């Protein structure tokens, strides 16, 4: 059913990606103060608008987080507006391609097919995919739509590929899922430890905070299989082998405990479970960890001492730690080091996850995660269900239980358990692991509906595509990497017959016979309900209003009342969010990756981003200047590894894993471990790094293990 309706070439010819280079000219009518859509930093930016079109940008120097600074994605973000590939009306699949349709047709068909499948196979036979680039209002609305309008338990989102390992670890250890410190703490640290975080490319604005800390005399430690841009200005570089961060962290904690560098008073007063954690790291001597991680024992000792001897340490971590089948343990180990040394809850002291997606923080707080209700509440907690049901005007029994996570939903589509899918803001064909499997699954769907503004590679498989809105076409809020809730302003109307995402979702609810629960005329009304729904929860937004955000340049949650100042820093004076008020150490246990290297596949493959592209590239692969900066994915490998395989810079190189093979250009550099290759993942089709990755997920966070696969290399024929 959901095979491509035309050849890929024909679809690409019609729907792109085409490169937009057009530079609109002339003066702006107005400047709209809003935020960049391309990553969790959510930099303040002013969009130039004329004739209901975004024609450029001006830096917004008064916004405190980025003070006018932007990365190349921010500078060029306006080029996604007025793009020739924009979908201007709904599309319906026919025997020979997509045809334009009216909204009546598109919405009627979508609602009818979803209901038919639910009547035939049961409510849980349809699933909903959301995304962490949606505003918080849209994310909240989508969670309510799945549970109230469709009544399915299966809703999850692409944030499942982002920071859920850190979220799970922080919730378990500290009682809440949030980066505990505002970024203004970074320049005040004495020691910064960046592990699994390519800050220069994936969180570019944060580089300025790191450099300011350096200028204030801070020591910088970087652990990464690659010599990332911030690593070249580091005091200590730890070239950790992919998938072995836990061994490194356990050995560091081992040294901290062995050498008496812990903060015993803090541990006694504010934590539980330290002894069992200390016991679990006892066997992890630096020598043992060195053999596993490939980091010299004396470097591990030095890192542990730099951290253990300071009481102003900030540990910064991102996908490198999280994208592993032990991603949660990795983050628990980071938290354990922060707790053991008392480096938490103070100015310049804490551990922080660097969220990657646009609304990576806000998009996960209010109900599009399969196991949560608004306010970061557990969907299995009877009190949480009762509160949310009362706000929604339904009985608690009507709220379904926890559903499948993003990868599990795709698995269930593959097995035939799930027959229908409605997806918004998600391009799983590019972003999920094992893309060959994802394609097979999509082709098995009996109905696939998509809401999107471009025809992504995934949307090409849809039965109906509803033309939705860009971030700047609908008002709302997001929460940035610091959990600062900020205001996304509507700059322009959706072009042509495209419509606001929230209006599309409300209209679908109406057609599903549940319209009385979705009488929202504008995003502000959704936000007002969200405030109530989150009230009393961990992510309490009750005291936040659009007006307060504008006046205060963002408000940090939790903010339980209108006169509450918001909470830039969590855990001050050692007060944690568990009922006992304490932080809980977690027992740490080593285990191997889900795709281990062996004689047949002896090389590590790791994947990640480049500075000029964002996630699956659905938006950024359409912007000419960003594509020119890094046009095609390349395989980074060390000269030693290249020599062993007779490969020179620029040669074609075939990378093979237990799933598939990909042939790309070799990029021979000394900035990657000699036992590891790196491929950025932003591209589709034959250039997709995710053809190679595997579907092993962390058993608790359900995050895929993108950062470590086993592969082999062969020089390919043909010219570069």
């Amino acid at each position, binding site marked *: 059913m959901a095979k491509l309706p035309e050849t890929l070439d024909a679809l690409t010819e019609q729907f792109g990606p085409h490169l937009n280079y057009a530079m609109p000219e002339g003066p702006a009518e107005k400047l709209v103060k809003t935020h960049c859509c391309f990553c969790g930093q959510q930099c303040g930016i002013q969009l130039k608008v004329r004739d209901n079109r975004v024609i450029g940008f001006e*830096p917004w*120097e008064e916004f405190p987080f*980025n003070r*006018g*600074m*932007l*990365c190349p994605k*921010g*500078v060029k973000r306006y080029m996604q507006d007025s793009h020739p590939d924009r979908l201007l009306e709904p599309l319906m699949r026919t025997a020979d391609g997509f045809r334009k349709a009216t909204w009546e047709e598109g919405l009627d068909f979508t609602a009818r097919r979803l209901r038919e499948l639910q009547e035939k196979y049961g409510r849980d036979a349809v699933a909903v995919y959301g995304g962490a680039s949606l505003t918080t209002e849209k994310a909240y609305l989508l969670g309510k739509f799945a549970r109230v309008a469709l009544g399915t338990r299966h809703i999850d989102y692409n944030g499942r590929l982002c920071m859920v390992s850190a979220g799970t670890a922080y919730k378990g250890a500290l009682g809440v899922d949030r980066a505990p410190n505002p970024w203004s703490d970074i320049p005040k640290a004495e020691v910064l430890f960046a592990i699994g975080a390519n800050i*220069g490319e994936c969180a*570019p*604005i944060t*580089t*300025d905070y790191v*450099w300011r800390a*350096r*200028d204030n005399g801070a020591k910088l430690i970087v652990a990464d299989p690659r*010599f*990332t*841009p911030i*690593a*070249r200005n580091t005091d200590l570089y730890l070239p950790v082998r992919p998938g072995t961060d836990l061994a490194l962290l356990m050995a560091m904690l081992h040294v901290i405990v062995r050498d008496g560098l812990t903060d015993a008073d803090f541990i006694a007063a504010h934590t539980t479970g330290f002894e069992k954690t200390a016991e679990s790291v006892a066997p992890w001597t630096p020598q043992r960890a060195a053999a596993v991680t490939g980091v010299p024992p004396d470097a591990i000792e030095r890192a542990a001492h730099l951290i253990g001897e300071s009481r102003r340490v900030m540990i910064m971590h991102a996908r490198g730690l999280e994208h592993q089948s032990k991603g949660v343990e990795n983050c628990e180990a980071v938290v354990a080091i922060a707790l053991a040394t008392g480096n938490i809850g103070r100015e310049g002291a804490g551990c922080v996850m660097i969220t990657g997606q646009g609304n990576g923080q806000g998009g996960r707080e209010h109900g599009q995660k399969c196991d949560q209700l608004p306010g970061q509440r557990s969907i299995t907690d009877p009190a949480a269900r009762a509160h949310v049901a009362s706000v929604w005007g339904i009985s608690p029994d009507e709220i379904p239980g926890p559903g499948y996570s993003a990868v599990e939903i795709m698995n269930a589509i593959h097995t035939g358990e799930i027959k229908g899918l409605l997806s918004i803001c998600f391009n799983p064909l590019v972003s999920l692991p094992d893309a060959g499997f994802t394609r097979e699954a999509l082709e098995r769907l009996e109905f696939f509906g998509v809401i999107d503004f471009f025809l992504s590679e995934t949307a090409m498989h849809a039965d109906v595509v509803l033309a939705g809105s860009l971030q700047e076409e609908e008002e709302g809020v997001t929460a940035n990497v610091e959990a600062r809730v900020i205001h996304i302003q509507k700059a322009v109307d959706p072009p042509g017959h495209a419509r606001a995402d929230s209006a599309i979702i409300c209209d679908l609810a109406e057609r599903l016979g549940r319209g009385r629960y979705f009488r929202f005329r504008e995003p502000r009304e959704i936000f007002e309900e969200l405030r109530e729904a989150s009230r009393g929860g961990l992510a309490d937004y009750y005291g936040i209003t659009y007006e307060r955000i504008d006046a205060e340049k963002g408000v940090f949650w939790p903010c339980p009342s209108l006169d509450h100042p918001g909470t830039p820093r969590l855990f001050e004076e050692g007060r944690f969010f568990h009922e006992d008020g304490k932080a809980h150490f977690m027992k740490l246990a080593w285990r191997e990756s889900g795709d281990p290297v062996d004689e047949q596949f002896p090389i590590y493959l790791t994947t990640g981003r480049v500075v000029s592209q964002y996630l699956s590239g659905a938006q950024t692969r359409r912007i000419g200047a960003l594509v020119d900066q890094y046009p095609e994915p390349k395989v980074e490998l060390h*000269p030693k590894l290249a020599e062993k395989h007779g490969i020179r*810079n620029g040669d074609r190189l075939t990378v093979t894993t237990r799933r598939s093979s990909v042939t790309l250009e070799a*990029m*021979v*550099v*000394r*900035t990657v471990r000699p036992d590891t290759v790196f491929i950025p993942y932003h591209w589709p089709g034959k250039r997709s790094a995710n053809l190679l990755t595997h579907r092993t997920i962390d058993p608790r966070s359900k995050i895929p293990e993108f950062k470590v696969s086993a592969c082999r290399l062969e020089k390919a024929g043909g010219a570069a």
Partner: protein
Amino acid sequence: MINFDFVDRRETIATAAFVCWHCDEPTCAQVCPADAIKKYEDGIVGSSLKPRCIACSNCVLACPFGIPKLVAPAEQMMKCDMCYDRTSVGKRPMCATVCPSQALAYVTPEAIAQTRREKPVNTFQFGSQTITTKVFMMAPAGVESISIDVADYTWEGENEAVPQAF
């Protein structure tokens, strides 16, 4: 109007971004046969003046920093003019405003010397040519000037002192 590249991608991830250095005695203007390149009162060296530029590329070849570029569609040399449209109304140039690492910063040398570990320098040695500029480069503390000619770093005998700037 910015030259940006990796220094040597095989060996390092290090990059370099250069705006025009706005020389006190601009070589580009000195070699221009059409007198199309002006240094303004505030020390900023402008792009070529469109009515005068003959697109000969003399400036492109002569600039010791490799900054000017011949822009073919415009048939004119264009380069960084320190965002005259912005700086003339009190704003910072675009590059220094958006630079996410503040490797490019629009501040006085005195002010930046207070906040950074490195030291601002604006004297450059190209063989026998000494150039002073309005734009400063941040160099390791203790360095007075920066040599760009490789020959200045090479060892040619026991009696020659080798200035190792980096």
